[in-house]
């Protein structure tokens, strides 16, 4: 049972982490909480649903199209709702973000209808792994692990998530646009003086965040095999908590925050089944706790500058 829960938590946590990374990147650069982020996640899930189930495209192609489509939507949101407000007070962009979020959810209801739709999962991802053939049952029992039933999806989700975050970290810390992103997060004006087209770098940030959110949405749709227009709301909130928990602005922090949140949720229900109704509340209790103890989050640093 524990192994089962472990993989469950790892998968859930990795997905929270992937969404949280998008929040944290945009916040790091624009000091904006992109409330529409959870809805990009939802769009990614819907796009893959339509591509593979409605239009019967192969899965790999469907996933690529869905990520591309959701990324485009993320870019459009930045272009239409945030860029015109770049010189405006921060609260205006925040209100715009809330507006975009409601708009996308309700657009989802109009276009996709409010009815949840079932996602038919590909066999290769859901046929249980032959664990008994790899690890003898006697061995599992000796280790008090018991019988484990794992599907490939449970392994793929965390593995691919970590790979994606590794690629992202490489982009941010080793490439030229990454250097510009880190510079913008501290001083936009000076970064422009260095010849950086700030709007383009911000667009890239939205594109990367949206692609990760879309991927998370697709994996989410496969784990809980259904899609509905409001599916992004709660995961979005929780990923935001994960980002704050890990220290907003920090990419490794967002991932760690996501994992911790995943484990807290799954393990609290596993060990205290009668509290399962409070599952969502645990995330918020965690947030309040961390804000009281360490307001900057686990890996967040105070913005200090030497003048």
């Amino acid at each position: 049972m524990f192994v089962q829960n472990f993989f469950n938590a790892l998968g859930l946590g990795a997905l929270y982490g992937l969404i949280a990374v998008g929040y944290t990147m945009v916040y790091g650069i624009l000091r904006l909480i992109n409330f529409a982020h959870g809805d990009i996640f939802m769009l990614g899930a819907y796009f893959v649903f339509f591509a593979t189930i409605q239009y019967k495209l192969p899965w790999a192609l469907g996933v690529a199209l869905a990520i591309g489509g959701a990324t485009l939507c993320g870019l459009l949101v930045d272009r239409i709702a945030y860029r015109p407000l770049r010189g405006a007070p921060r609260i205006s962009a925040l209100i715009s973000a809330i507006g975009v979020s409601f708009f996308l959810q309700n657009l989802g209801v109009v276009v996709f209808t409010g009815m949840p739709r079932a996602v038919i999962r590909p066999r290769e991802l859901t046929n249980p792994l032959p664990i008994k053939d790899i690890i003898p049952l006697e061995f599992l029992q000796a280790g008090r692990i018991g019988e484990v039933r794992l599907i490939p999806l449970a392994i793929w989700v965390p593995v691919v998530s970590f790979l994606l975050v590794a690629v992202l970290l490489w982009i941010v810390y080793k490439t030229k646009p990454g250097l510009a992103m880190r510079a913008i997060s501290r001083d936009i004006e000076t970064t422009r003086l260095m010849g950086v087209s700030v709007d383009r770098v911000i667009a890239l940030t939205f594109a990367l965040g949206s692609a990760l959110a879309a991927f998370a949405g697709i994996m989410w749709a496969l784990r809980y095999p259904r899609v509905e227009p409001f599916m992004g709301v709660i995961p979005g909130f929780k990923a935001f908590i994960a980002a704050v928990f890990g220290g907003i602005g920090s990419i490794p922090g967002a991932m760690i925050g996501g994992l911790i949140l995943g484990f807290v949720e799954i393990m609290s229900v596993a060990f205290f089944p009668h509290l399962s109704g409070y599952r969502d509340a645990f995330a918020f209790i965690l947030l309040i706790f961390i804000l009281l103890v360490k307001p900057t989050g686990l890996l967040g640093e105070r913005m200090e500058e030497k003048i």
Partner: protein
Amino acid sequence: MQIVLDVQNLNIWYGGIHAVKGVSLSIEKGDIVTLIGANGAGKSSTIRAIAGLVKGYRGTIQYTDAGGTQVQLNNRPPEDMVRMGIALSPEGRRILPHLTVEENLRLGAYSRKDKAETASDMEYVYNLFPRLRERRGQKGGTLSGGEQQMLAVGRALMSRPDLLMLDEPSLGLAPKLVGEVFGIIREINRQGKTILLVEQNALAALSIANKAYVLEVGATAVSGTGEELLQDPRVRDAYLGA
């Protein structure tokens, strides 16, 4: 001589405040030109307008690039200026404290695609400021004030500008360091860079300038060669404390 930058009748307003009132200046290729004056005289506003950081000013700013093409700079964004060959080392240094010395320099070269030549310019900056080479892996925020100023100048040089603009490079530096920084500015100029220098330290600035403008409450009060202004009784009284 070829005019690199020609500013005519520059007017800048901040809200209702008329901060710069009809300033004109021109910079010849290979010169050090300085703008001096008290706090709030409009020096920084002028240099920031040239760099593209001020929106909605009146007047014309005409730039002639290395190839001899004339460009109107009015209300273009700052990132364009760098690509055309104008770099600004801003007031207060504004280095990025969370990036390393080397990353700060690489950021200065952001608009360039010529990798080999960028690397040789980085070598040039390190030779100009050996302290930066020693601290290349250190975070910018851990440098001393003087080192940060060197980094700011080095970073501006990394775009290989034709016109280097320096806004108050002596700000907050000990007198000994001011001498060192100005020595390096002169050295950079000797190697062929045209320099526009905004300074409050009038004595230091005038002693290295070919041409100088004294700004007072937003307008040009006096102008002439550095030598002339050092002798000018009005300038001596007001800015040199002599």
